């Protein structure tokens, strides 16, 4: 019996020739990411009296969730993380100016096809956009991997999602994923590894693949894979310090999949996730017209350069509705620089938006909080009750295009009604 991508990567990282679904293996990750939670892992290390790391080169630390510090406690916690990185020689350290961990690590060439990456964030699944197995763990488990180099992992069953066709104008991978999450449910792929195939995939930019791999978490996946191709190689060219790290892993032709889902993406419409679950999705026509108070263009799902460009194309020549606060939080410093140099940032500012420093921002409740009764449309990946402040506020999720159109109109609006320049 052949193996899926997840089986192959987990077998390799556990030093085995094969791994079957359901089997528990001891795997050695290539990279352990910790974000703002790093100080918590350091506190566990101190508590148990550990003083040695398995391999400091396998650690990556990015201070993204609260950046810069908002309180004395944040400042002290971040100081713990900085001091730890210095003391143990953790060179992959990115401070509060850098941006969201996932995007920063991929931009910096720390993620390669075939890698096994764990980290203190559920959206580590995004690394599958480059063919790496990424998955989230808690901070105590991060400490454990820091010290022992390994963790137990159950080999998942795999699901195949096959995409055919091309998106209609105004439709993006965010809409595809909201459609899929609505169709399959919040636990539709719980514990599963999902592999994306089909004629559409080679057309999709790496940025759109990142959105797919990021949002798949909201179906409960353990990991996701977009099998590496020329676009992957192109993205990583000049990023990977050592090209030998490019070890693309593909499934065997006779690999076993629990089920297969086919989607003709040319039939998709812009989609919106309604409060308070991501699976509560509706086509734009059913929610258009609902008033919004805040529009948040940010998060590891949709604050990449292409996302900012998409929003700017719609906002150009328009004004944000006077009753709407448009908050733009670029995903990383690199993205912000690119948007500055290309003029995209200027369009976003001139249209009436405000631009914050890069990072997780309002998605993680760091600025941009909501009051009782307020409504936010967000390009993030979660709309859970109370996530952005008041538990009497409502969060809707959409693509950057739908967000831009809605910010102009002051109500949730169909981006297809806007002529892009």
């Amino acid at each position, binding site marked *: 019996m052949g193996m899926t991508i997840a089986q192959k990567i987990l077998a390799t990282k556990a030093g085995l020739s094969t791994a079957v679904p359901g089997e528990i293996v001891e795997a050695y990750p290539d990279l352990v990411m910790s974000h703002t939670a790093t100080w*918590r892992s350091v506190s*566990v290390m101190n508590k148990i009296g550990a003083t040695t790391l398995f391999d400091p080169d396998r650690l990556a630390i990015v201070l993204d969730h609260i950046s810069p510090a908002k309180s004395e406690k944040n400042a002290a916690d971040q100081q713990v993380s900085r001091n730890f990185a210095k003391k143990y020689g953790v060179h992959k350290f990115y401070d509060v100016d850098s941006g969201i961990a996932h995007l920063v690590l991929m931009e910096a060439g720390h993620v390669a096809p075939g890698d096994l990456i764990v980290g203190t964030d559920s959206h580590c699944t995004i690394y599958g956009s480059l063919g790496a197995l990424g998955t989230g763990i*808690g901070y105590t*488990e991060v400490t454990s991997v820091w010290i022992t180099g390994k963790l137990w992992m159950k080999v998942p069953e795999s699901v195949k999602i096959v995409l055919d066709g091309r998106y209609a104008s105004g439709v993006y991978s965010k809409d595809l994923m909201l459609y899929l999450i609505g169709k399959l449910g919040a*636990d539709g792929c719980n*514990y599963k590894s999902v592999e994306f195939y089909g004629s559409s995939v080679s057309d999709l930019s790496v940025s759109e693949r990142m959105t797919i791999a990021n949002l798949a978490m909201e179906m409960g996946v353990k990991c996701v894979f977009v099998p590496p191709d020329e676009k992957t190689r192109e993205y990583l060219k000049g990023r990977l310090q050592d090209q030998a790290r490019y070890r693309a892993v593909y499934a065997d032709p006779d690999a076993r999949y629990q089920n297969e889902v086919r989607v003709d993406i040319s039939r998709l419409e812009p989609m919106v996730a309604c409060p308070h679950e991501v699976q509560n999705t509706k086509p734009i026509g059913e929610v258009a017209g609902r008033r919004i108070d805040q529009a948040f263009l940010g998060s590891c799902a949709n604050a990449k350069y292409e996302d900012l460009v998409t929003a700017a194309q719609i906002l150009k020549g328009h004004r944000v509705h006077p009753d709407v606060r448009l908050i733009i939080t670029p995903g990383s410093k690199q993205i912000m620089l690119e948007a500055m140099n290309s003029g995209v940032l200027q369009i976003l500012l001139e249209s009436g938006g405000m631009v914050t420093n890069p990072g997780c921002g309002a998605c993680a409740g760091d600025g941009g909080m909501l009051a009782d009764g307020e409504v936010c449309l967000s390009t993030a990946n*979660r709309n859970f*009750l109370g996530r952005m402040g008041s538990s009497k506020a409502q969060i809707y999720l959409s693509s950057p295009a739908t967000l831009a159109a809605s910010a102009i109109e002051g109500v949730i609006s169909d981006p297809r009604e806007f002529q892009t320049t």
Partner: protein
Amino acid sequence: MESIIQGRVYKFGDNINSDVIIPGRYLIYIDAERLSQHAFEVLGDDFPAKLRNYQILVAGRNFGCGSAREQAATAIRGLGINAIVASSFSRTFYRNAINDGLPIIECPDLHAAVEEGDDLRIDLAQALIFHRDRHYAFPKLPDSVRGILEMGGLAAYLKTQLTSPPRL
């Protein structure tokens, strides 16, 4: 960790996410008692206080979905909850609960049979749940994983590993 867990049940539905269990703004804390003061508070003014009258949570599918925040398990432990029985768990919560020393049991048949306030007895060694005049079997955890739980969590387990010679 005791092999027998007994107590009154509070019942939740499907897809209880970790933002509801503990909102992100409290992740600056890691202490169980402090976190528990805000556990489930978005569900209404009587939360979390009312949960302190219960010892076991019974939930539907996909309990703990969403964020990988370990404090979701810590906060529930801080409420005095001794076990969670769900039809299924999200994988991140499942790992975090084990690593935090909070017993979790997958038993899809129990949810429909149980009502809030019912008494449950869980025998971890026998892998059985006793409810009214019935009992329900659940799959035992793998030995390696049960070892972590029995030590009270991953930190304690890790400490014992430090004193033995490294394997590599």
